[in-house]
């Protein structure tokens, strides 16, 4: 993972083509949500040792935000999906 990411649009690419934005499992709360919900969204992270979802933007390629499902200890990548498709599927 730390070396190559398979972009669903562009194919296998080196890490330096990407910029990492952070936890992709977070869902932006509704404007009316509680202070706590907003605080958790912006500041609190599950930070698992193991599988995680992370946003990697293919900045030097298609510029899509990708949801990379990966293991933070083994660095295995389990899946890479387009961020917008992921967001739609997860009802945003």
């Amino acid at each position, binding site marked *: 993972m*730390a070396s190559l990411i398979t972009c669903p649009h562009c194919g296998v690419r080196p890490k330096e083509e990407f910029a990492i934005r952070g936890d992709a499992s977070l869902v932006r709360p509704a404007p009316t949500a509680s202070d706590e919900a907003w605080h958790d969204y912006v500041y609190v992270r599950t930070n698992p040792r193991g599988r995680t979802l992370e946003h990697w933007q293919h900045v030097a390629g298609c510029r899509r935000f990708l949801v990379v499902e990966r293991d933070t200890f083994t660095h295995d990548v389990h899946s890479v999906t387009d961020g917008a498709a992921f967001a739609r599927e997860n009802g945003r």
Partner: protein
Amino acid sequence: MRYSAFSIVKNALSGNLKWKPQWRQAEPKSHYDVIIVGGGGHGLATAYYLAKEFGVKNVAVLEKGYLGSGNVGRNTTIVRSNYMLPGNEPFYEFSMKLWEGLERELNYNVMLSQRGVIMLYHNDGQRDAYIRRGNAMWMEGVAAELIERDQLKKMIPFLNYDHARYPILGGLLQRRAGTARHDAVAWGYARGADRHGVDIIEHCEVTAIRRENGVVSGVETTKGFIGCGKLALAAAGNSSRVSEMADLKLPIESHVLQAFVTEGLKPCIDHVIVYGGGHFYISQSDKGGLVFGAEIDGYTSYAQRGNLATAEHVMEEGVTMIPGLSRVRVLRSWAGVMDMSMDGSPIIDRTPIDNLYLNCGWCYGGFKATPASGYCFAHLIAKNDTHPVARFLRLDRFARGYAVDEAGAGPQPNLH
């Protein structure tokens, strides 16, 4: 056994057979007043000050690996107190002062070497930001110097004055800053804590935190249950994993930071030099190796290893700052797992769970903070009250809107 030149001679004459272990291999008791999770620099320093300064002697330090196997043994050994924000500067200066007395305090030579840390600037905006920082240091009574280009050329002639991108215009110098021998810090605190009665228990991993009526009562470990009055977490790199055992989520991501050392060389670099055109920093150890590093790899990771792209980028910055490094060979790279917090600053605080105390979020800055972190954490645990220099480093600062954001990068940990 007190360490001195005399003890060395005396022992040598008896074949060096009478040296004793620097700390006992303790077996856990059933209960401690305070259990500290994490036998790294911060955990050991906390134990030492608890026992020595705050009279709390029934203390255990639990370490899942060998003592000092975390970040205290894998960093670039830099010690400095050149921060800008009022939330940070008093804390790091407190730490710096403790460093300056640490060898006598511990009777252990941690080889504090106040060689000076100089941070280079490359444009007017950066210069102004460093001036702001230098003045903030002076406000706290910490000497800082602005070194302009001509003076810098005399001081450090081998920098890339003519071809660097970005141009080297000057630097902010803290002469009292420098380096220390990282492993020795862990060992010295361990020996000191041990001498004050602290039990240091290596290869003892915490597997669960036991709570009764919402109050922490002890920990399950690979060596069985151990009860405690107070539980203190000092497991930076793995803070989220440990706190999760108490259902506590943190404003932290774990990131991997690489560091490097070259082959041994005769003395060539006196200062700790920080390249502001990127993130590169370098110093020379007493053994002769050039120790250097730069930015984190950028993704969350618990693996103590980095990737080649980042390493290459580090070297690009290195030869750009010091062209003469080109033929110097890099011997080894290693990586540590950083608690990257949401504002780049640490957390020393109580938690919403009674008797559970938290020391985490050290980002890149953990090593230099070791003495103050231990002292302030011990203060908090013993007195249940925040030490004044750590009063801005609270867990609820994000909810209240008081982030201590030295980089001004906002709530994205990999930007700090």
